[in-house]
Structure formats: C-alpha cells, structure tokens
C-alpha cells in the first residue's frame, strides 16, 4: 500500500493513531463515533431481522405463524420496514460518512460533540417510533400514507431521527472542507469519499424533504391542518426514492473500497466513475414518480419524464459502475498474474474473504436482480402488472438487502479489525455467512416475485381471505412461491444471525490486534506504474456486462409481452 505523505500544516491537533494496514491517520474521536453508529445499526438490524423472520414464517402458508393475530403482524411489518429501511441503513451510513471524511482523508472529524448530539437524536427518534409501533399505535407501514393515522409520536420520532441524521451529514461536509483547508490531503478527493459525497448531497435534500413531509403529517395527526392524500404520496416518494439513492451511492462507494482492500483494485478510469456518481446527483432526485405510476392526479407526461428521462440517466450511472468495478477487479487480478482465459481472474479471486465475497454477491444481486427488476417494474405501463403485489417486496429485498445490506455486512468484516482493532471471532462463520445469507435471500426474492406475478398482494397477513365477503383463490403455484420464500426465510435468518453473532462477539471479545500491525497477510498488488495499469485490458468484465445486458433485455421484453396480454385499459 502506498505510503501516505503527511500533511504540511497541522492547524488543529487531534488525538490519533496510525493505521497499520492502510497507513492512514485515524482520529480517535471519529473512530469511536463510527464504531458506535455501526454497532447501533447492527442492533436495529437484529430487531428488524427478528421481525422479518416472523413475517416470513407467517407468509409461509403451511406455517402461518401470526395468521390468527393480524394486528400483531401489521405492527411487526411496520417495525420491520422502519428498523431495516431507516434505522439499520441510516445508522450504518452515518458511520460510513464519518469514515469517508475523517479516516480516508487523514483528517479530524469536526465537532465530535455535535456528532454525539446527532447520534442521541437519532437514537431517541428511533426508540420512540419503535415503542409506538410495538404498542400498536402506529400500524401504518413505514410509508404512513395519509389519511391512515398513527400516533403523533410516530411522526415526531421520525422527525427527530431525520434531524439527527441531517446534522451528521452536515458534519461530513464540514469535515471535508476543513480537511482541505488544513492540508490533510492533496489534490482531488479520493473516489470513495467522492462517492460518499454524492450520497451526502442526495442525503441533504432527502432529509430536508423528509422533515418537510413529516412535519405536516405530524401537525395533521394532531388535527392542526389538512393534508391531501395524493400530495402526501407525492411528497413522501420525492424523498422515499432518493433515500434509496443514498443507499446506492454509499453501496457503490463500499464496493470500490472493498474491491480495493481485498484485491487491490483501482478504478479503471476515475473520470468515468466520478461522472457516473454525478449522474446520480443530477437525475435521481427526480426519479420518484415510479411509485405513483398508477396513481390518479398525476399527468402522463410527468410520469414518463420523471421515471424515464430523469431516472434512466441515473440508471446509466449504475451501468457505468457495473462495468467499472468488475473491470477494476479484473485488472488488479491480471496484474497479479491471473491472466489465463476470460475468467481465471474471477475463479482465483479470494472467495474465502467475506469482504470480497460480500462485495461480489452484492454487485451481482443488485445488478442482475434488483436493477433489472426495478427498472422494468418502474416502466410506466409495466407497473400495472406489479404495483403493490408481492413482487415489490421481492424486488426491494434484492436491492436493499441483496445489494445494500450485504455490502454493509461485508465492510463490517473490515471495519472491525481496522477500527476496533480486534480479530473476528468465528472467522469461519464469517467466511460462509455471505453465501448462506444470500442463498436464503434468493429463495425469498424469487418466491415473493413468483407469488406477486400470480397476483398475491403485499402487506397482507395471509392470502387465505378467510371470512372475506368474496372467496378468493390463487393459482396453486402462488402458494409454492410463498413456501419457497418461507424456506428462504429460515436460511436467511440463520445467515443474518451468523452476521450479528460474529460482529457483536468480535467487537467485544475479538483478539486485540497490535498497534501498527497490518491486518492483511499478503501485500495486495505488485507495484506497477499508473501508465501501465491504464493499458490493461479487461475482456472478462466486458463479457459479463453484455451477459447482464441480455438478462436485462429479456426481463424487459418478457414483461412487455405479458403486458400485451392483459385487458385493454386507458
């Protein structure tokens, strides 16, 4: 690893140590904040995961765990959405942001006290909402569509959480600016920080929007103002969707980070990778109406403009990364000597390293399943076939779990030795965890999508329609789909428990790593000049992206043909 030159001027001293692995200077205050936020995230992942398991066991028709208590199911479903989508992911992202500014830039985190205030607000908000949800005062799902009413404390909790997160994001910007002023790094921002910067920019607009969406909802729940249901939906998704783009930008940054630390990959072309991140900022904030494609009150041109013109240019950004990252890995591996055939570089990759396997699994699941189904289900007319069916959870588990969650888990396996300086307890478990978790997840994803394609609704305790005014029967295959998802639930729950177990035990009981010692056994890459690296060809990654394009096209064409068969509607 290249030796980092120390900054020339050091206007403000801070307590730090030197990382034995990367040579980076680590601000102790930032280190503690990162570890605390990440550990808190994992607590919420555990809570949300237990909920997920109970939901999955309920929707498995042969088990129907909570069928007799639908009220409890809807509480848990709301809790699952909130704890996973908001708390697990955003606490982890705050940790990631602090890492990307303070640690990667060799800098100090500005105003660590304020960072603790932000943390406190987020915890209070999250705990408050959770309590209200578990008490049954807010069974409205994370989307909380007005006029389905929750206790005012539910909205207040979310507002506090968003304000806390907003402060954290502002500290990220401040740290980047101060780091530059204090000469902590030279030249342009490193790519990982640049990617996180795009995440942070989207986060500011999103969190502000979140406050602007929830404050009216809060006032409305107190009876102080009126709120139009469709206006709420529009507002909600104009933040709800960009929020997923924060996850996307953060996840892609982590891919670059993990690809680098595990196989020494460097971006093929920094210019192009940065351009792709910029596309996210420019276009994704608009791409929110694909949640409202079959809603009344929104014009067709706006629907098309918003989903396609705006969203598809962000999709272009993702397609660029889809080549850049495998390409960077391939180049690094070829330089190391794995040059045989198209795919020796991939076969000889460090599959036993959970950082690498998580990164690759996340990339493939997000790209091949999440990306393709997301874009296709978000197609204006195709959405008629999928809106609010079980296919939607199928899709979102492939993006936000297969992609984001698995990437976050993978980077945790490195954060613990790098920042907490502890070895993993149960490294063998960690080695198999990404495979077990993602294997179960595949069952969940395809089971849910299959049931959804046969019409099974989402957000429903069971699909038996017992006691309903009109009897309902789904094709037998729909039950098979739900059962497959049920089997997946068990496998993924085991994988999830393995992750939480390894992470928590390692944080507290892992063997101490000596000061200044590298955690990497082998030196990742023979030195080679930047000029030479630039010339390495990556035919394997090139073939992979075209395979991806074929899958994408098939998913799309398949859906269009299916659409052509349903009832004419206009």
């Amino acid at each position: 690893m290249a030796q980092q030159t120390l900054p020339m001027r050091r206007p403000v001293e801070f307590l730090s140590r030197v990382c034995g692995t990367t040579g980076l200077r680590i601000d102790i205050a930032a280190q503690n904040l990162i570890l605390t936020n990440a550990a808190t995230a994992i607590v919420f992942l555990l809570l949300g995961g237990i909920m997920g398991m109970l939901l999955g066991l309920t929707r498995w028709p042969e088990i129907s765990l909570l069928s007799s208590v639908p009220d409890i199911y809807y509480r848990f479903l709301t809790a699952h959405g909130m704890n996973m989508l908001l708390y697990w992911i955003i606490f982890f992202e705050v940790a990631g942001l602090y890492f990307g500014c303070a640690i990667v830039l060799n800098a100090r985190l500005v105003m660590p006290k304020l960072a603790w205030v932000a943390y406190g607000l987020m915890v209070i908000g999250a705990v408050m909402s959770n309590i209200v949800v578990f008490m049954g005062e807010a069974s409205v799902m994370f989307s909380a569509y007005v006029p389905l009413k929750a206790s005012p404390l539910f909205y207040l909790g979310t507002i506090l959480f968003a304000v806390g997160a907003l402060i954290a994001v502002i500290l990220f910007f401040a740290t980047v600016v101060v780091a530059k002023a204090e000469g902590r790094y030279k030249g342009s921002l490193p790519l990982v920080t640049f990617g996180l910067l795009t995440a942070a920019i989207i986060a500011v607009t999103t969190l502000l929007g979140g406050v602007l969406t929830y404050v009216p909802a809060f006032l409305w729940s107190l009876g102080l103002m009126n709120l139009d249901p469709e206006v709420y939906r529009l507002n909600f998704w104009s933040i709800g969707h960009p929020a997923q783009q924060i996850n996307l930008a953060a996840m892609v940054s982590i891919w670059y980070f993990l690809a680098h630390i595990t196989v020494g990959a460097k971006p093929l072309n920094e210019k192009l990778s940065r351009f792709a991140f910029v596309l996210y900022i420019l276009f994704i904030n608009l791409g929110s109406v694909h949640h409202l494609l079959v809603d009344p009150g929104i014009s067709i041109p706006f629907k098309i403009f918003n989903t396609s013109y705006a969203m598809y240019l962000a999709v272009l950004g993702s397609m660029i990364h889809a080549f850049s990252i495998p390409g960077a890995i391939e180049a690094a591996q070829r330089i190391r000597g794995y040059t045989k055939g198209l795919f020796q570089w991939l076969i000889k990759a460090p599959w036993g390293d959970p950082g690498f396997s998580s990164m690759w699994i996340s990339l493939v699941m997000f790209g091949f399943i999440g990306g393709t189904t997301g874009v296709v289900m978000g197609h204006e007319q195709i959405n008629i076939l999928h809106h609010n069916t079980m296919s939607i959870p199928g899709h979102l588990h492939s993006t936000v779990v297969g992609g984001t969650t698995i990437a976050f888990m993978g980077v945790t396996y490195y954060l613990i030795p790098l920042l907490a300086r502890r070895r993993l307890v149960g490294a063998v478990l960690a080695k198999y965890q990404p495979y077990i978790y993602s294997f179960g997840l595949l069952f969940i994803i395809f089971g849910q999508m299959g049931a959804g394609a046969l019409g099974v609704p989402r957000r429903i305790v069971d699909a038996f329609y017992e006691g309903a005014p009109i009897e309902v029967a789904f094709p037998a295959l729909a039950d098979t789909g739900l059962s497959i998802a049920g089997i997946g639930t068990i496998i993924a729950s085991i994988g999830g428990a393995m992750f939480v177990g390894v992470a928590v035990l390692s944080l507290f009981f892992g063997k101490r790593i000596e000061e200044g010692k590298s955690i990497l056994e082998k030196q990742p890459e023979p030195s080679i000049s930047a000029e030479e690296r630039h010339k390495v060809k990556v035919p394997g990654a090139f073939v992979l992206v075209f395979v991806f394009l074929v899958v994408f096209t098939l998913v799309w064409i398949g859906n269009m043909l299916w659409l052509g068969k349903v009832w004419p509607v206009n």
Partner: protein
Amino acid sequence: MPIHSPEKVWWKPIGRQERIWFWVSFVFVIVMFISMPIWHLLADQNTPHLSYRVTPERFTAIVSEFTKRYQVGSENGIPIVHPPAGEIYLLARQYQWMPILELEKGKTYHLHVSSADVNHGFSIQPVNMNFQVVPGYDYVLEITPPDAGEFTILCNEFCGIGHHKMSGKLIVKE
C-alpha cells in the same frame, strides 16, 4: 486508488471497452425511454390519464345512486349491478368493494374508482392489473374486458386491520 487521491492519469481518455459499454448503455436507456410514449401510441394497456377531484361523501352518494339504478341482485349482502356500457362506479372502503359489477365482454366502460376513507389498491385477479385508489380522487379507468368469467378484486394497499379480507368481484358476461 479509491481511498487515495487520484493519480495523474485520471484525465486520460476513456478506454475503448469503457467507451463501447457507455454508448451501448446510453442507447439502451434511450430505447427504454422511447418505449413508453410509443406504447401509448401503439398498444392498448396504458396507465389511465383521467382523474377528477371528488369528496368521499360525494363519491359515496354517486355510487349508491348508481347501485340503486342498476341493481339486479346481491351476493353476501353486496349488491350486484348490471349497468350499460359507459360510466360505471366502484367504491373502496374499509374493507369492502361496492358494488359487484356485471359487465359485458368486449364493451368499453369508464370505470370510476375512489375511496371513502383511506388509500386502497384496486387489483383485478387473476388478470393481475393493479391501480392505486386514493380518497379525494376519482380515477377513471377505461377498460374493455376481453374475456368472460368471474374475476376477483383485491385490495393491495394496506388500509387497516381488515386489509386481508377486502375482496370484491367483477363479472363479465358473454
């Protein structure tokens, strides 16, 4: 290196493979974009563009008027109506679809759907077509059922504790 500042070469021209992939992707997303307006012009399944503002009270009144006028029977206490082609109405409310519509195959109807209380999801099965039902908005779906038979209408937007019991029916006669 992604965690270090970029090296000098980063402004070098983009490699051939990357350029090819970029332009292929670009064309792909543009084709995807164009497919939406084109589908509007050439195909029959499009998201409905017509909707009106209506208060839940007014819509409920319209539906009960409509039901009285065309009722031909009832099932489990839910009225069955057989209206002529043209404007027809369906009300979603916790946790029922009102009334049961009896339509004729191949005729074109303007189906007005709205809600008396919260958001609901209009989902015709097993055709599997899905639309959002929002209180305060009268959403007009122009439909032409091509097959005869009995179809169920489910609610697929969470609407409260009885959400999983909210079913209705649509009958299409030859």
